[in-house]
């Protein structure tokens, strides 16, 4: 943690809203991308960003500087996002199996169809992510979206590196299973992957 950041956090701990603005300017994109990675829905992700910074302003006094500030912040984002998702989960959401009849179009080179296919693909990824347990989802987002190292992930998730690797492994495996039309499974023949053919 650099000196400027320590000073910025210290001012924020004293209730300085300007300091919170500086933290927002520095981290809002990361916060949004983690939130979006979990919920895959713009408005909800923006709500999470808002909630996180309000929560941070209230609770930053509890940050003792023992870990990196960003891991503290990203853990808060992940928890808030999973919480949002849990609440939203009560609403009806089609399962991936129910969508199973969807077959990607062969005319992917055509503009509108390609756009449609892209949207459908995004929806499938969203549904596949929704099916993952929260810890595996968090691991996948921290690593594949944010590019965290195993060490950083362990800090943000409050677990060991071994646990991080295990969550990543099982998360990826489940995602590959759910998206087998798009992602070539290990040992699968090349023709079976819809994505690689397109």
């Amino acid at each position: 943690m650099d000196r400027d950041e320590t000073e910025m956090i210290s001012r924020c701990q004293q209730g300085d809203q300007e300091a919170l603005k500086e933290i927002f300017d520095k981290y809002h994109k990361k916060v949004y991308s983690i939130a979006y990675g979990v919920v895959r829905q713009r408005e909800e992700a923006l709500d999470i960003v808002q909630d996180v910074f309000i929560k941070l302003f209230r609770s930053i006094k509890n940050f003792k500087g023992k870990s990196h500030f960003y891991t503290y912040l990203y853990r808060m984002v992940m928890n808030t996002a999973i919480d949002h998702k849990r609440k939203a989960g009560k609403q009806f959401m089609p399962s991936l199996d129910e969508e199973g009849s969807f077959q990607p179009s062969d005319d992917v080179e055509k503009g509108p169809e390609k756009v449609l296919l892209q949207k459908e693909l995004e929806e499938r990824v969203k549904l596949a992510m929704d099916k993952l347990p929260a810890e595996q989802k968090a691991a996948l987002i921290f690593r594949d979206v944010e590019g965290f190292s195993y060490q950083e992930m362990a800090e943000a998730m409050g677990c060991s590196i071994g646990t991080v690797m295990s969550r990543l492994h099982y998360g990826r495996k489940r995602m590959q299973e759910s998206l087998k039309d798009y992602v070539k499974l290990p040992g699968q023949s090349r023709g079976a992957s819809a994505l690689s053919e397109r």
Partner: protein
Amino acid sequence: MKNSCSSVSTVLEKYFDREATDEEKFLVEGHLQDCPACRDALKSMEELRTLVKAPVEEAVQKEDFPWVWQKIEREIRLQEKQPWWQSLRSWLDVTPLFRRKVWIPAVATAVVFLFLSTQIIFKNTPSYPDGSVVEYVESETDNVMVYQLEEPKVTVIWLFEGPEEERTTT
């Protein structure tokens, strides 16, 4: 000698995540040259990463964040519990009457009015100087009362000639 896939699979993911040690890298790269299945496994992880990451990056690029900060700022202000003097101050700030500073002459007028009212009230209230009755004599026709003040030194003598009449001599 070619390593088996099962012995490599444990470090393949570490290799993909750029967490492998030099020794592990050497092991995996040597194996990948002869093993299409593990190359496919690596490709599969890459494809999955693209599927998970690309929509997020696109969403971040599209988003306009300044208004999000404005919402946060407003929400914090609303949620903050102000002490009473700050609430009064903000109330004074937003009330048009007080915002125009007409409250200064208004308060001055109120103070003067209060002062004058107090004077009238105290004027009507009977008050007696701090002193004592030295002597009081009654007769059939007149009554006399001698009253003495300590400071200033004054002696007051009242002559009462009847129930309605009264004379004072100092």
